């Protein structure tokens, strides 16, 4: 029988600690597949952020460094400048990158650091128990927006991908989702492309994932999946927002 579902080699054979129906595990898997695809496990350094994905080092069979909350992109820039021939990526939540670490994220992109940022946007602070995130949708109830996010109090959800795509320093910017097989395939391609950009030294690459957090959305895994389609994607459109070609340098 043909083996159709295989654990990526650079993922350690342990169960994820994520809640049932959480999409973090799927995003982890796609990153691991890209590392396998390019056979770069032995030269890749991952930078974990503070959030539900902090235990990245328990899952990825690669060198991993833990950054303070929000600082992963600065930490990764430091790693890359010190070891330019290594492949460096961060995996950051929406609170991590979109709120506390937004300055580091913008300036890392603007410097055109040749690293890859994986942005896990679930519209909520998962790890701390479901508080409002900078990406929480208008009207969305969280533990700190109990009446629903109201722009007169809380402002609007931030579109990170669009913002970073405006910067000259960014080479590749995409937004993906993993809520159905078609989107999953596109996500896989986007992550691969992001790492390829780094390998080819094209500059800063960024993939925003729209991820479900069933636990803190108060939904079942299936309902959460549907919410990604019906509520998140309309506000956070999917696609490749920017792709620099080698020719742009010439």
């Amino acid at each position: 029988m043909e083996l159709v579902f295989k654990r990526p080699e650079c993922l350690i054979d342990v169960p994820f600690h994520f809640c049932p129906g959480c999409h973090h595990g799927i995003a982890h898997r796609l990153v691991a597949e890209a590392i396998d695809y390019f056979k770069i496990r032995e030269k890749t350094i991952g930078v974990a952020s503070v959030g539900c994905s902090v235990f990245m080092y328990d899952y990825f069979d690669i060198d991993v460094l833990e950054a303070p909350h929000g600082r992963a992109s600065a930490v990764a820039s430091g790693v890359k400048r010190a070891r330019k021939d290594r492949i460096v990526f961060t995996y950051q939540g929406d609170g991590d990158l979109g709120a506390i670490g937004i300055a580091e994220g913008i300036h890392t992109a603007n410097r055109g650091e040749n690293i890859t940022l994986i942005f896990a946007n679930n519209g909520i602070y998962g790890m701390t128990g479901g508080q409002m995130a900078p990406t929480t949708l208008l009207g969305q109830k969280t533990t700190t927006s109990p009446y629903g996010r109201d722009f007169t109090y809380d402002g609007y959800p931030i579109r990170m991908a669009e913002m970073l795509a405006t910067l000259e320093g960014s080479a590749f910017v995409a937004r993906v989702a993993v809520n159905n097989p078609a989107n999953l395939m596109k996500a896989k391609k986007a992550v691969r492309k992001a790492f390829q950009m780094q390998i080819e030294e094209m500059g800063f690459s960024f993939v925003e994932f729209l991820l479900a957090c069933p636990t803190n959305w108060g939904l079942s895994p299936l309902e959460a999946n549907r919410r990604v389609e019906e509520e998140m994607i309309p506000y956070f459109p999917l696609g490749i927002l920017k792709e620099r070609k080698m020719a742009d340098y010439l």
Partner: protein
Amino acid sequence: MGDQNPEKMLVKGNEALAMAAIDAGCLLYFGYPITPQNDIPEYLSKHLPPLGGEFIQAESEIASINLLLGASATGKRAMTSSSSPGISLMQEGISYMAGSELPGLIVNISRSGPGLGGISPSQGDYFQATRGGGHGDYRMIVLAPSTIQEMYDLTILAFDLSDKYRNPAMILGDALIGQMKEPLLRRRPEKIDLPPKDWALTGAKGRKPNRLKSLYLQDGELSEHNWKLYQKYERMKREEVRFETLLTEDAKLVVAAFGSMARVSKSSVELAREEGMKVGLFRPITLFPYPEKALHDLSKRVKRFLTVELNTGQMVEDVKLSVDRDVEVYFYGRPPGSLPTPEEILEEIRKYYG
């Protein structure tokens, strides 16, 4: 055996420090402009690129310290420099570096506070430097130069100690030491034996993956980690204390001062001697580990200490903690604004000499 052909030059303290960084093999610098330390990034932005090094003018000191954290994690020597308000912004990162056992040099050419304060010399950051500054139960190696030559020599030492102990190290200077020009003998250091950096993140090639982190959630893990750090700090206290004494053998009163204040106090001690008073100087060079044992030993003979600081009283607490119980510890402090003259300190010496 040091450098056979040391170069002699007349340089600013900040430049001496920058040269030392390069001579220590540090080719990675990250920083954000702030007076009175700008000569350091300015010098390194010019000299690092031709050497194949990296210079990043970061968007903030928060970014600077985290760039340093990342670069140090790869096993390369790296540094940042700033002045007081910027060092405040770095405290979280320093705590993470201590927790993850990462080396790295942080330079504080301090200015006066609190708040925006001013740019005049001050020693108001002594507590911040020696008491941790950031959160958690950690210590940082802190060296306090008082000459331009020491700005060079102690910077090289700071890199070595930082690597030896896998712990962040700080040079604590101020505007006086940073801006002043003095002759420097640039003796490039010999390589010394340091433990291999087998913990560094270089990609898991031919070995198990390395992980650098400060999060410990398993039962008992964090307490064990804290005890391990404690053992390291205790070892520093046993092996790395450095201080200077001047004319203490027959002294009846000893002035205790560090950094720029030790320079001024030295002149005051000499003036006191000219007047026939038996006065000496005790100058801690390592502020952590603090020379508490040396001070304690000294206090068995000398019963009067005058601590002189460019603040309203910080290191004086360490002097009091170190000396014998029957010792009188006096304090002369000067908040930011102007430096005391040697004569002003001499006046204090006369007052307490008895």
